[in-house]
């Protein structure tokens, strides 16, 4: 079974997208596993890292994916040449985009289509949205093509995030060590709990844990972290590694950054080391601790 890791919290700016990017690149570049990344966030930041996103002519501020490199206008009459994960909510085919990173394919966002899916309220429709991503990822084609799927979600607890959780085998909750983050953590714990009720023993949903992000050496952060670690029941779900606040995690995202991925930095680079340790921890959970061959 393809393992599916979702980065989620309904609090904004916690590091969902950053963690999706770095984890996906770790899996593709370092582990050499065939990886599909999915952007469920109408903001489309995740997609923008890997392919060109264009402004949607029909919707101000909205983004749509650029034309697919395999699109041939003369031949492909039944397709407009763009493909996004939102297509699954409309019964349309999806075509993953290749990225400049080996082993890494992307299903990008489409702002307005995703927002429409997020906004559904009618009960039957909501249920369809909830299950659609899961159904898609269970397709034999997808299962046979990819070893891992990484999903980035919007800062919400709405249908798109729920759909991602229903599809997931693992959840990571990135969180800054600040007061308001706790709301996001609590919200995600509730979604996780509700989902565990529905899972079968051979298809569990595992909470990898809370990934402390943008941590600084200040009293506020230290106390918050130790508060989390001491929280009854919660302590087990706070990851043992933390990600510090470092300019490089933002700098490496700019278009002409060199190198382009932190996994192209020297192995002894502090930032690379720090994040690689966290990624390794996540992957240990994903593999139940069993050794997985490194194909690099």
């Amino acid at each position, binding site marked *: 079974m393809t393992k599916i890791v979702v980065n989620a919290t309904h609090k904004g700016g916690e590091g969902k997208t950053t963690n999706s990017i770095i984890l996906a690149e770790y899996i593709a570049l370092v582990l050499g596993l065939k990886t599909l990344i999915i952007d469920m966030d109408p903001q489309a930041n995740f997609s923008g890292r890997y392919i060109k996103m264009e402004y949607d002519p029909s919707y101000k501020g909205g983004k749509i994916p650029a034309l697919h490199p395999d699109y041939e206008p003369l031949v492909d009459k039944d397709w407009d040449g763009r493909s996004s994960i939102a297509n699954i909510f409309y019964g349309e085919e999806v075509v993953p985009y290749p990225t400049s990173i080996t082993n890494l394919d992307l299903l990008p966002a489409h702002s307005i289509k995703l927002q429409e899916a997020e906004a559904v309220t009618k009960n039957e429709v909501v249920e369809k949205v909830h299950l659609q991503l899961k159904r898609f990822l269970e397709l034999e084609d997808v299962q046979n093509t990819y070893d891992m799927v990484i999903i980035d979600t919007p800062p919400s607890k709405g249908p798109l995030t729920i759909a991602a959780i229903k599809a997931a085998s693992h959840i990571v909750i990135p969180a800054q060590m600040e007061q308001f983050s706790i709301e996001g953590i609590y919200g995600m714990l509730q979604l996780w709990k509700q989902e565990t*009720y529905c899972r079968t023993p051979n298809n569990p949903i595992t909470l990898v844990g809370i990934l402390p992000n943008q941590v600084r050496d200040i009293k506020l952060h230290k106390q918050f972290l130790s508060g989390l670690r001491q929280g009854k029941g*919660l302590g087990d779900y706070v990851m043992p590694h933390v990600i510090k606040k470092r300019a490089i995690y933002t700098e490496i995202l700019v278009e002409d950054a060199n190198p382009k991925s932190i996994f192209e930095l020297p192995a002894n680079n502090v930032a690379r080391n720090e994040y690689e340790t966290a990624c390794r921890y996540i992957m240990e959970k994903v593999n139940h601790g069993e050794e997985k061959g490194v194909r690099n």
Partner: protein
Amino acid sequence: MAKKKVFAISNALSNGIEETIQAAHDYSGELRVEVVPLKRIEVDPENPRDLALTFEDANHGISPTDPQYARKEQEIESLQSIANSIKDQGIINPIVVYKFGEKYRLVAGERRTLASIIAGKTDIQAKILDSKPNDLKIRLLQWIENVERSDLSLWERLNNLEKIVSAYFEKNNLSKKSISVTELSNLIGCTKPHAANYKAVLDADPGLKQYISTNQIRSLEKAALIATIQTSDLKEHALNECLAGANLKRLKAIAAQKPNKIAQIKKSVESRGRQTTSVNLGITKNVGVAQLVLDSILKNNALSPIAIHFKQVDWNDYRAINNTFKQLVKKLEELHT
């Protein structure tokens, strides 16, 4: 310098988190839905059925010699629209079964199962329990399924909980009428503080419950706080503030007040002003109290002649209730001149 508290997860939140994680562990997989072949599903012979139609009939058609032919035909007819919708989009609400050897026995969803057979399906989505559930288990499953639904009011949750508690007593042959906090927290898989809140509200007086039933009080924490205030003055005060929209913090402040302080303030207010020459029979927002007063008075045999005037009171209408009491006082004065 006072030690500055930099970080604190509020108690309510940290309880909530603990409770969430606990429940995830306790009930993992309880609501799982799997696809089960229809031919492995059977009815539970111990459960009463309301349909005459058997699975056999649905599969192979009703035998023309069947003495119940007409009735069964009608039942098939009545299942046709569900069958059509199942053909189109499958079942929306999974059935509930439990494992019985190689078979699955039905707990809920007989009509959906029959309709699926009629629709020509070979399998069906089902929640699978490991063994035959007792009433308590069924209620608990409903609880964990529903408790997170934001559209469920406090009143609906309390009603569910009341049923769970009585099923629990029945199952364990307990004759007592009140459940302990520990029992309750074990039963529904939540923390003790949370269970204590539920217990306080379960045990609350009818007056308070009335406000919950009409959704004037929607917060479990607030209701529990008011329910546990001992002094009636303070309780009334907190209740009124709550109805006026006070937050939990404010209500806590009221609950923490010393009871005699309020009494003192009241006294000093009363002792001022002009001399009092009439009796104020008091004011309450609590319809239950008004009802109790009226009922108690009318139980007095000596007053039976006036009882006839107070048979039909619209207890949902404050104005009508006020008029009733005005009339009551008038009648009583007539009797006591």
